[in-house]
């Protein structure tokens, strides 16, 4: 695994790895309330990061204040607060601000809005979209709900049972999903307007990783499975320089695709 053309992450020394994380690659975790130290004021947690990464305290506080502004947080109140004094949405915005503190190039967000109310979720998504543009950031957004990301991301990777089953530009995948799993995921989002009859449930239970079925891991839930799906796991076929691809026997005969 290489970040930004640097050495293989696993060959790096502990010290090099520590420089990479947070300074270049930062992460926002699923349950924001659990990532903040309950015993320290937010201000102290910012200083801890600054100290660990040899940043001037004053400089760290200044960028923290700027980030609070971007996040619609009252810096005066929030920086002096303990985590329990903030609402769920505020804590989530604080942890995004902390992730951005050292100006990383890549931020990984694991279900950053799942624990939030609709309006807080909308505010966090709007902020992420703004920050992404203003800071020229790359975001990796991990979620189980495709509807959350369609307004934010450029490209989507759909995973099932540990493998990539489909990838492509978000608009293409949403309008023309190819893998039956992606089709099922999209059909299980009830529309806000228009025809509800196209909403369908995805059959069966999520794959049990200890007892994966032979062949394609999805075939037992797949409405279009045929004999080959039970025997052979499909490979991810990609085209368009690896930007779009699908791992499904239904498309295996398509010619002109590179086999990854």
């Amino acid at each position, binding site marked *: 695994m290489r970040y930004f053309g640097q050495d293989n992450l696993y060959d790096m020394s502990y010290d090099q790895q520590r420089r990479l994380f947070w300074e270049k690659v930062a992460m926002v975790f699923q349950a924001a309330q659990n990532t903040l130290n309950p015993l320290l004021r937010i201000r102290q947690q910012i200083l801890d990061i600054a100290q660990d990464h040899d940043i001037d305290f004053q400089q760290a506080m200044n960028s923290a204040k700027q980030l609070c502004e971007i996040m619609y947080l009252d810096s005066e109140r929030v920086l002096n607060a303990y985590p329990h004094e903030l609402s769920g949405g505020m804590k989530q915005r604080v942890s995004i601000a902390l992730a951005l503190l050292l100006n990383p190039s890549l931020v990984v967000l694991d279900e950053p809005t799942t624990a939030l109310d*609709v*309006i807080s979720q*909308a*505010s966090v998504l709007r902020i992420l979209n703004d920050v992404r543009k203003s800071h020229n950031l790359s975001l990796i957004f991990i979620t189980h709900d495709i509807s959350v990301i369609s307004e934010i991301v450029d490209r989507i990777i759909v995973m099932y049972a540990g493998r990539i089953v489909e990838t492509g530009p978000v608009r293409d995948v*949403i*309008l023309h999903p190819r893998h039956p799993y992606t089709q099922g995921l*999209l*059909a299980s989002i009830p529309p806000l307007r228009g025809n*509800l009859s196209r909403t369908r449930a995805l059959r069966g239970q999520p794959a049990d990783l200890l007892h994966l079925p032979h062949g394609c891991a999805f075939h037992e839930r797949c409405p279009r499975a045929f004999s080959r799906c039970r025997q052979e796991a499909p490979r991810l076929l990609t085209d368009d320089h690896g930007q779009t691809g699908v791992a499904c026997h239904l498309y295996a005969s398509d010619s002109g695709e590179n086999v990854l």
Partner: protein
Amino acid sequence: MIQVINVSKSFLVKTTSSHAASGRIVQAVRDVSLSWNKGEFFAIVGESGCGKTTLGRLLAGHLLPTGGEIQYNGVSMSTTKRPHHRHLARLVQLIPQDPYAALNPVRKIRGLMRDPITYHRIANNRQADELAENLLQMVGLSAKDVIGKYPHQLSGGQRQRLVIARALTVEPQYLIADEAVSMVDVSLRIGIMDSLKEISRQRQLGLLFITHDFRVARYIAQGGSIAVMYLGQIVEQGPTEEILGAPLHPYTQSLISAVPILEGVEARNQTVVPSRYEISTQNLAQGCSFANRCPFADQLCKNKAPSLLPSTSPHHLVACHHAEPRELVVDVAEPAS
């Protein structure tokens, strides 16, 4: 029919912290009136803290109102004698929000299903097992696989189905589902909602679904109605398609605007953004409770609280001085199947 007449519920918050003075009274539900018929599908939508769970618990008889009354086929829960409660409790069943907390971890599924049946003397032990197995099958669980298991051996989706089956053991006429799918993966939600809808339709049950998600509310209350709650009050209520197609209250409009849309399949026509992201009770002594977050609020809203009145149609009620229909999201394409 269940009738809620000017119901209020307040709690005394005893904790002392820097924000809440000791002995502060929280009004979770304020002056709510509605009626709910057998066989009617109904959704209540609102943010956390809006009182929707408290309203659900009042309807299920778990809490008694501090003001007003709830009548079940004309009988009020608060005036009936204790033994009669058992009968009313059977009438309305609450499906709890968190299927992890709702099941006793040291009891097997057989016992969990049998308890309500024997408590309400619906059947003897042998018949109870048979009834339990039928209900488990009905909600889509394989009875012979799960009946000898403990709750921790089931997945989240299975537990959610189990608490639905358990609510059905006492043959209720009304079901209240409190955020029944919010803990379940998106891919499994529709399956659970379909079972709930089908069972309610077959048995002619009234189904009340409490949720913060307009997509879920619309899917459940298809052809029924939606009520939107804010800080303990119903601010808008009407037929499902009218609420989504032409919402009148700025709060309803901000909730719908906050739903992430599937770009390409749906498109935003316009958005209403509240001027503050967090629910707030500041400066709420008089006037509209949404005034301090409302983008359209003026002096009138700060001085005088609007009442819930019919508007564009007799069944579409709204509590707002500046109610104006706004179409927020439109359907743009038929997605490929």
